[in-house]
């Protein structure tokens, strides 16, 4: 149902098997399927981690933590069983890439989970999908059953003497459950309230055992690294940012879609060449480069390479790969307000700066947008957001505060234009929505 978009600059690695019928295990095997696992079995734990480190793969869930390094933190000896947990909660607004992976290539997630398990001698993996993704859960369950039938899962996988099981799990609607420690709580049958860290999941995770937790795209990339070789994979990207990733282009863009592009791909080119530019001859106003929680870039900040380091240097984050494009008719106050409504709705309520902060920010932004705001509201919004930063129990508070600070800082004039009873100036100039076909 959901399909990959392509452009001549696209480099299919994770998407290599998309649209080729690879949900069937026999077809998957024809497309070099499960060769990566066989190779990983011969390499052993240290060999696997070395290959992962060589690939320069960084987590696709948002923070961009080096995956090989993360796996190496899991202690070799552990009294408690170790686990692999695949994060398919995909709820960051602007992000719709994991969906394509599960729809087109669920076996790559299974393979990646097995290889992650082999790297730390875990015997069990969980694939957690957000509750809304029921059809993907069904596709994945079928793939898991096929892998069991072939002897790739269960006892003595591939005749190696090693056992490995995979259980699929559904969520039931909650953004916060995408946060790694809240995800573990959810999988343990509880409310998704995050856990205090340290200890980190690599040491004390699911059911108290050392746990590798990775985003679904990160895990789906793993077999390709073993198929191609870590160093080859790394070469596709930039320094310390190996390979390619799925970018989700959305918003005011001619050809929205999910495209696989090399890490470091220029953002301007991504918008104007890959995405075909802004519809209806409009000008660009802003880009949210990595999902709702990443600070917006202005139209003159887009000459950057899309990797974790370069976007970080530009004052934002590469995040989850959700590139949201805003044209000149967009009201930044309304956009900031919609973003904050989301965080206020999704705050789990555990800690005060986030629970109260998001609610107050929502109220202040509503007031400004509706014309009831005064100058002091703008100051207060910044003050509140800046004081949430780093003071919340989990990063959701930061995710709410950071973009807000950028909106006020970079588009202050728009906030001012709303004050003193004037209300939203964009309402009046906005043309009817173009017919979207």
């Amino acid at each position, binding site marked *: 149902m959901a399909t990959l978009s392509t452009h001549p600059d696209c480099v299919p690695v994770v998407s290599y098997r998309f649209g080729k019928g690879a949900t069937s295990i026999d077809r998957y095997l024809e497309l070099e399927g499960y060769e990566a696992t066989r190779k990983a079995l011969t390499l052993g734990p240290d060999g696997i981690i070395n290959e992962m480190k060589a690939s320069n793969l960084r987590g696709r869930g948002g923070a961009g933590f080096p995956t090989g390094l993360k796996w190496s933190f899991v202690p070799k000896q552990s009294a408690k069983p170790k686990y692999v947990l695949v994060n398919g909660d995909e709820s960051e*607004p*602007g992000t*719709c890439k994991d969906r394509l992976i599960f729809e087109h290539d669920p076996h790559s997630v299974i393979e990646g989970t097995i290889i992650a398990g082999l790297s730390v001698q875990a015997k*069990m993996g969980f694939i957690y999908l957000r509750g809304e993704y029921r059809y993907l859960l069904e596709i994945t369950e079928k793939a898991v059953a096929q892998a069991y039938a072939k002897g790739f899962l269960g006892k003595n996988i591939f005749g190696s003497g090693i056992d490995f099981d995979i259980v699929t799990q559904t969520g*039931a609607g*909650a953004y916060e459950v995408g946060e790694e420690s809240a995800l573990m709580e959810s999988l343990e049958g*509880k409310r998704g309230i995050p856990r205090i860290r340290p200890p980190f999941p690599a040491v004390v995770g699911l059911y108290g055992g050392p746990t590798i937790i990775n985003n679904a795209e990160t895990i789906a990339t793993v077999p390709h690294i073993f198929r191609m070789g870590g160093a080859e994979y790394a070469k596709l990207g930039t320094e310390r940012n190996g390979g390619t990733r799925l970018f989700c282009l*959305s918003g005011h863009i001619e050809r929205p879609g999910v495209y696989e592009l090399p890490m470091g791909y220029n953002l301007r080119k991504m918008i104007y060449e890959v995405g075909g530019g802004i519809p209806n001859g409009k000008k660009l106003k802003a880009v*949210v480069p990595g999902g709702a929680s990443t600070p917006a870039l202005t139209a003159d900040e887009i000459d950057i390479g899309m990797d974790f380091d370069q976007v970080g240097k530009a004052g934002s984050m590469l995040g989850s790969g959700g590139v949201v494009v805003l044209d000149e008719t967009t009201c930044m106050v309304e956009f900031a307000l*919609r973003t904050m409504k989301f965080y206020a709705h999704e705050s789990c309520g555990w800690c005060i700066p986030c629970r109260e902060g998001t609610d107050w920010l929502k109220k202040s932004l509503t007031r400004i947008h509706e014309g009831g705001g005064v100058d002091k509201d703008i100051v207060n919004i910044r003050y509140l957001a800046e004081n949430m930063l780093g003071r919340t129990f989990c990063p959701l508070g930061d995710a709410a505060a950071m973009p807000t600070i950028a909106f006020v800082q970079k588009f202050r004039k728009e906030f001012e234009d709303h004050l003193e009873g004037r209300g939203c100036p964009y309402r009046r100039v906005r043309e009817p929505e173009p017919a979207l076909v």
Partner: protein
Amino acid sequence: MSTQPSQPAALFSPALAARFDQFVTLYPVKRSALVPMLLYAQDETGYLSDAVIAEVAERVGVSELEVRNVISYYSLLRTRPAGKFHVQVCTNISCMLRGGNEILEHCKKKLGVPNKGVTSDGVFSLEEVECIGACSWAPAAQVNYDFHENLTPESIDRVLADYRGRAGK
């Protein structure tokens, strides 16, 4: 249908009951089956009634209060009936930029219900939801678990008419 008081009607279909028997064996702890069990129970029974909550609590081995605490956390879980077709319109950022609010308003008018309302015939319910993972195909909505994307007021009309046609079946 009347049932003997001593023999209450089974809450779940035999297939679902069998599935639940299996669920609790899958994990290192039984409680891990709680969230999936609640969602699947709701899919079959429409909402999480007191009886469903009691039975799930029993199966997982936790108190009813703990089950209720979990239910209140997750947005897909509900303790009141929704329509047969639950229309969930995304108005989050990517959808908003491409007319998600207009789709929501259109649905309100068309169905004659506010956000979170249920039509009087019980066929439809409407809810404004957060990002559903269809941002590149915005604006988008889900009806139960089915995705509908690149929506226009005209295309959502067709979608609703299609479900309306299936309502009697």
